[in-house]
């Protein structure tokens, strides 16, 4: 990856991983991430912001911000992963690079509570309205518990652990052979 090698001379980036011939991921530090994105866009032709999202790693106490860029000349995807701590998360906004990014940032603010100072319309409602709990896409939010206590579940729905259920009811004699 020539792009990666050239960029790594200037910026703190690491862990290049080839998923497919046309898809690479690497990690960038929080401070350099926007600069890396800018040079990928301006210098290396990754002009298309495919998506921007967050993966919650609760056990590591980290958010992985994932930017996916696409190069139309080489038909190549580049995923830039930025690890940041889960408390009071703030990240630089990229809406000046892609106007459409403001929508992604608005959604991420609502779903994960990541702040992007300066991003237009950041605090407006995106999908939720009047949400009072912790941001719902965080992994410590239990959607079933919330649903049970809020939405009057109709009695009669049970869920079984499939393995146990099959053992007991469907194939009582054969379970040991699995």
């Amino acid at each position, binding site marked *: 990856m020539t792009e990666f090698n050239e960029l790594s001379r200037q910026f703190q980036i690491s862990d290049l991983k080839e998923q497919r011939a046309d898809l690479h991921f690497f990690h960038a530090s929080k401070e350099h991430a926007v600069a890396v994105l800018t040079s990928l866009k301006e210098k290396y032709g990754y002009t298309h912001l495919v998506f921007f999202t967050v993966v919650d790693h609760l056990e590591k106490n980290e958010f992985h911000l994932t930017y996916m860029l696409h190069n139309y000349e080489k038909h190549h995807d580049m995923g830039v992963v930025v690890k940041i701590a889960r408390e009071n998360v703030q990240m630089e906004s990229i809406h000046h690079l892609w106007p459409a990014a403001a929508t992604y940032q608005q959604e991420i603010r609502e779903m994960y509570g990541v702040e992007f100072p300066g991003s237009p319309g950041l605090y407006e409602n995106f*999908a939720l309205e009047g949400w009072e709990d912790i941001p*719902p896409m965080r992994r410590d939010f239990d959607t079933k518990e919330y649903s049970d206590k809020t939405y*009057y*579940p*109709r009695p009669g729905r049970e869920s079984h652990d499939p393995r146990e259920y099959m053992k007991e009811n469907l194939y009582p004699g054969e379970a040991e052979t699995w």
Partner: protein
Amino acid sequence: MSDNMNDMDQIQLFNDQGRLLNAGLPDEEKALFCDAAPQVDAPYRGIWEKFLNWARSESLWILGFGTGCGAIELRPLMTSRYDMYQYGVQPRPTPRQAGLFIIGGYASVKTMKRIVRSYEQMQGPKFVLGLGSCTVNGGMYWDSYNTINRLDHYIPVDVYIAGCMPRPEALLAGINELKKLIKEGKGENANKYAENFEWYKRNQKKIIKDWNMPDYNW
């Protein structure tokens, strides 16, 4: 009707004159909205009411509000394959003129607010058809944090059509069932809503946190 009696005391709906408080509205807007609660409109009696019920059942106007993915089966129903017009069913763009509200599947909280608002703006007698399993018990989204599980806790439902997604034939069967109910004089859910107004309102206010509309949308 009593499984959430505990919440009953938390929200106050009426003032001492029996008018609605409209607590969600800002003060300067309170004068703009009506503060009367809905009333029970008693049906006529005998053959006259039967005749009117026949007319109501043969001219069902659907509110043009695709609240969920079930709306996609309304298109085939409207067009030449199934052609609901021949059964006296047709879409109508405003809630004032519509009489039948088809809830097209799951209702997220944000949509629920609009559903309540549209439903209350419809003039009685009005009917609700819950389309899809997700209106019955949450269906595929039973554990989702943003979709309701039981539609009949928020607005009265006349007919449920189960399935995901129900076919247009199922919808037609549901409409026929509804027609039968209306002809038998059982389509009185608008009155049921007025009678159990407080119960419905409290259920609604439990999920709709930013209630910035009048308590009853005339």
